[in-house]
């Protein structure tokens, strides 16, 4: 028997309303999950781009940025597994931008970028130019030798620049140079004149890049362990004499923020002393020495020496210019390190 009624219709309508509400809630939940996924991907993209930049910086010398012409860009390949792509752009001498990308698409925009500065080696070369270049009064003691001819230097290696004679000693005009009996100053010319030049910025950068900081008294000597040069040892300044072959290519950048007294030993590389450098005894050093003032006993230096302060430089040993040793010292990894400016990370978004 058929009877009219409204219960079924009411129930169906009720179910419809409930389904609509459930569908609305599901839509909100789905939107939230999607939004969360997007946020997660954005964060991951940014972090992977920053990681790509860091990977390039960690292996900076291997990318040979110095070979890039200004304005050119190269894709930087890193040894890090699954690393995001990165590129290096040369802005000018010693200035680069490293960009990190989240994907490899050609039109991809960088999500991270760092402004990288490196030491311009020519700025160090500009501080030299003679066996000894002094800004203050220079005393060449009895029997001492300052030689810019490079005639006494061992045969040049293949990677050495052409050897040309330089002045033995250079000083600013009007600065007194005292040469003792039987002392020898050789070069072309033996004594040259050069204006004092500002060196503060270059020295500051060198100090920041140093492998080791030393103070007080040092007696450097090469050291090796397990067949490898102990480069972490601050007393190991490499081996200029061939006694520890593992350290023949170790050319550290040593920084002394104050006075430094070297009481014997040997080393190579670059030595920056912001105070007085005193060398006593049988010291042998190959490379570049930059010091505010200098007191050189019976020591032997092959490379180039520069004093950048008004104090007296006294030489009682032997200083021979060697362009080859200067270039070896300037080619050391420490001098190729990137250093940060106050705004190292750039706003790219």
């Amino acid at each position, binding site marked *: 028997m058929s009877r009219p009624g409204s219960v079924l219709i009411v129930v169906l309508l009720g179910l419809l309303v409930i389904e609509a509400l459930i569908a609305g809630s599901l839509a909100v939940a789905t939107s939230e999950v999607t939004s969360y996924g997007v*946020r997660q991907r954005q964060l991951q993209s940014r972090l992977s781009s920053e990681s790509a930049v860091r990977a390039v910086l960690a292996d900076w010398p291997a990318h040979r940025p110095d070979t890039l012409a200004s304005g050119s860009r190269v894709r930087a390949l890193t040894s890090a597994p699954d690393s995001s792509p990165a590129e290096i752009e040369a802005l000018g001498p010693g200035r680069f*931008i490293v960009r990190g990308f989240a994907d490899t698409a050609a039109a991809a925009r960088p999500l991270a970028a760092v402004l990288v500065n490196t030491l311009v080696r020519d700025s160090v070369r500009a501080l030299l130019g003679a066996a000894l270049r002094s800004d203050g009064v220079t005393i060449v003691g009895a029997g001492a030798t300052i030689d810019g001819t490079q005639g006494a230097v061992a045969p040049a290696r293949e990677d050495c620049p052409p050897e040309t004679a330089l002045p033995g000693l250079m000083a600013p005009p009007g600065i007194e140079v005292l040469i003792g009996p039987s002392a020898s100053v050789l070069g072309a010319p033996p004594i040259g004149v050069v204006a004092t030049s500002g060196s503060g910025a270059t020295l500051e950068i060198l100090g920041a890049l140093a492998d080791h900081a030393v103070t007080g008294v040092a007696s450097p000597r090469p050291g090796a362990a397990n067949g490898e040069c102990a480069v972490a040892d601050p007393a190991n300044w490499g081996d200029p004499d061939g006694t520890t072959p593992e350290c023949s290519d170790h050319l550290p950048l040593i920084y002394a923020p104050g006075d430094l007294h070297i009481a014997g030993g040997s080393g190579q590389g670059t030595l920056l002393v912001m105070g007085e450098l005193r060398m006593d005894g049988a010291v042998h050093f190959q490379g570049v020495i930059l010091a505010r003032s200098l007191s050189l006993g019976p020591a032997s230096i092959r490379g180039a020496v520069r004093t950048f302060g008004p104090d007296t430089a006294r030489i009682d040993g032997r200083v021979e210019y060697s362009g080859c040793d200067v270039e070896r010292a300037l080619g050391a990894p420490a001098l190729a390190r990137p250093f940060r400016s106050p705004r190292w990370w750039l*706003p790219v978004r």
Partner: protein
Amino acid sequence: MMMRSGFTLPEALAGLLVSGILMTALTATIVTQARLANVVAHTADATEATWITAALLSDELRMAHVAADRAASSPDSLAIRAFRGMAIVCDTADGRATARWTGTRSPEPDKDSLLHEERALAFSLSAMSVDCAVLPGEKRVVFEADTTVRPGDVLLLFERGAYHLTDRALRWRVGAAGRQPLTAEIFVDAHTGFDAAQPAQWVDLASAPHPWARGQGTVPLRTTLRSLNGGSAP
């Protein structure tokens, strides 16, 4: 006696009873669902506001220099130099610098400044330009700034402003302009704000639960304000 079809009184009463029960259940369900939808929407708003605030502050401060770009903060405000992009100078001539620009928006001389080697410069834009190849995402911009810049220099564009966590929302204020809300007004002011350290190292964000969400407290989130460029902690 003639039989008539129709409802008997007990049938009608039973029908009314069943209908009443169904209507009551249905009404209760609809009300509950409506409340639930309201709570869900509120929670979504709170999550969105918290996310926007945390992401925005982290992003703004990530490329800042702590000492140079972040002014003193108070519990409810943080004044900063907010960077909007960068330009790499590719050519200079007659006091104009043509540059490759990339950033979140175009330069606006009325409210932006250029940072060149740590000096803030006013600038204007010029239509004249020389050829300067741009990369994907970059565009060419010509600045007229009161300095001589060189090709290869990097110019950073910034505006000064302050983020405020007041009146239950994150707000951005440029100069003497009003505080524009960037989020829904959903935070609990008493539990939301920057820490007392100078500069602030973190921000607490606490959103209020919906009044109908019984048993829920505020939802706190502490976000570290890290700057990759350093300058000092954090």
